[in-house]
C-alpha cells in the first residue's frame, strides 16, 4: 500500500491490480493431455495437445512456467490493432479508445512470462508503452478541465484499471475538497445555529447538575 495517512482514501498497489487482472481469460495451446480442472471459479479443460482452450491468466501462467503450454496473445495485442489505437489516441484529445480493462497488467504479464509467444515482441511492447503514456497524459488533461464545470464531477470513459488506480488517491482527495468547499451549507443561518447551540449548552448544564 502506498502509505495513505487517510484510511478513507484507499489505493490498491500495482501488484494487487495485477492480481485482479489474472482472472481475465486467455487462450492457451497445451502440449500435454490433462483431465478437466474443476475449480471454484469454474471448470477448465480438458486439455489435449494442440487444442486451444480458454483458461484464466493465472492458470495460463502456471502452465507456461512448467512448460506445458504456449499462450496465444489476445487479438488486441496485434501490431496492426495497437498501431491503429495509438494513432486514434493521439488524434483525439478527449476520447479514450476502447481497450481491455486490464490491458496494462495483461500485457505486462505476457511480456514477463510468455515473451516467446508474442510475435514482434519489441514492437508490441513499445506500442503498448506509447499508448499507456499517451493515455496517461490525456487523463491528466481531462482532470484539469473538470473543475470548470458547475458540478464537481468529471466524465472520463474507457479508462483502464491501472490508470484509474494511479489517479485514484489524488482524484478522491480533490473531489472531497471540492465537495467540502462547494457545499452550500458552509454558511448556515446564524439564528438557527445560535438556537441549536444554546440548546446544546442547556443539555450540558442539565447533565452536570444531575451528576451532582
Amino acid at each position, binding site marked *: 500500500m502506498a502509505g495513505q495517512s487517510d484510511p478513507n482514501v484507499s489505493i490498491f498497489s500495482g501488484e494487487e491490480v495485477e492480481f485482479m487482472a489474472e482472472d481475465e481469460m486467455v487462450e492457451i495451446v497445451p502440449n500435454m493431455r490433462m483431465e478437466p480442472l474443476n475449480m471454484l471459479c469454474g471448470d477448465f479443460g480438458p486439455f489435449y495437445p494442440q487444442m486451444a482452450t480458454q483458461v484464466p491468466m493465472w492458470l495460463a501462467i502456471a502452465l507456461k512456467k512448467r512448460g506445458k503450454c504456449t499462450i496465444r496473445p489476445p487479438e488486441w495485442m496485434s501490431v496492426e490493432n495497437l498501431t491503429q489505437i495509438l494513432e486514434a489516441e493521439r488524434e483525439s484529445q478527449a476520447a479514450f479508445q476502447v481497450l481491455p480493462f486490464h490491458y496494462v497488467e495483461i500485457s505486462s504479464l505476457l511480456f514477463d512470462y510468455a515473451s516467446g509467444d508474442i510475435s514482434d515482441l519489441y514492437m508490441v511492447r513499445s506500442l503498448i508503452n506509447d499508448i499507456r503514456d499517451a493515455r496517461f497524459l490525456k487523463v491528466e488533461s481531462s482532470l484539469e478541465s473538470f473543475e470548470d464545470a458547475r458540478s464537481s464531477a468529471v466524465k472520463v470513459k474507457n479508462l483502464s484499471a491501472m490508470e484509474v488506480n494511479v489517479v485514484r488517491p489524488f482524484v478522491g*482527495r480533490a473531489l472531497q475538497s471540492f465537495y467540502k*468547499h462547494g457545499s452550500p451549507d458552509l454558511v448556515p443561518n446564524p439564528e438557527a445555529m445560535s438556537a441549536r447551540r444554546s440548546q446544546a449548552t442547556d443539555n450540558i448544564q442539565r447533565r452536570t447538575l444531575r451528576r451532582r
Partner: protein
Amino acid sequence: MDPLLQESVLEKAGSIVRRVGSFLKMASYYDIDDILVEEQQRVPVVFQQAVNGVDIDPSAETHCVEPGSKVELPYWLAHELHLRKVAKMKVPACFNQRTKLELGADGASVDLRSRCLYFYEFGCKIAPLVGDRDMGSFLLSAFRTRYQKILAKAHNAAFTAHSKLLSYLTKEETNLYEAAQSSMAAFKKWRIGGPRFERASVLGRKRKEAN
C-alpha cells in the same frame, strides 16, 4: 474567575466533551489536522463583556479584561467565547482583503503555507462565525486555481524538483500532492518489476536467460 470564562476553559480541559461536540458537527474525531487547526490558528477577538480573574496581558495591572479590548486567542477559545457572546470574532489576517485580491490575481503562486497552514479548514470553521457568506465560494475558487497547478506537477515530476511549489502549499494541498506522488511512485515500482514472488534460485537464473 468569571464563571462564563471558567466554564469555557473547563470545557476545553474536558476535551472529550468538546471533541464529541465537534464530531457531531461532522468534523472527524481522530483527525489530527482538525485538532491542530483549532489549537494553532489564532483569531482576533474583541471582548464584549468585562471578564474578571483572567490575565491575558501579563503586564496588566488588574486581573480583568475590559470590554472592547482586542486580543488574539486560539480558535477553540475564541469559538466558545464567541458563542457565549463574551467576545466577538474578527476576520483573521489570513483572510483579509489583500490575500483575497492576491488569490484572485494569481492563486497558484500565493504562498498560503506561511499565512495559514490550514487555510481551507480554518476558513470553513471561521466562515459561519464571522458571518462571511462569500467565504465558501472564495475558498472554492482559490482551491480550483491551485488544484490545476498541483495536478500539472503532481503526477510527473521528481519530488525534489518542486520543493518550491511545496513550500507554498497548505496542508490539504500537500496531502493531495503527496497522494499523487506516492501512487505514481507505486505504479513505477510495479512497472519496473522486481521479484513477483520468492523464486528458487534455479528459476531465477532461467528467467534471466530468457530475457
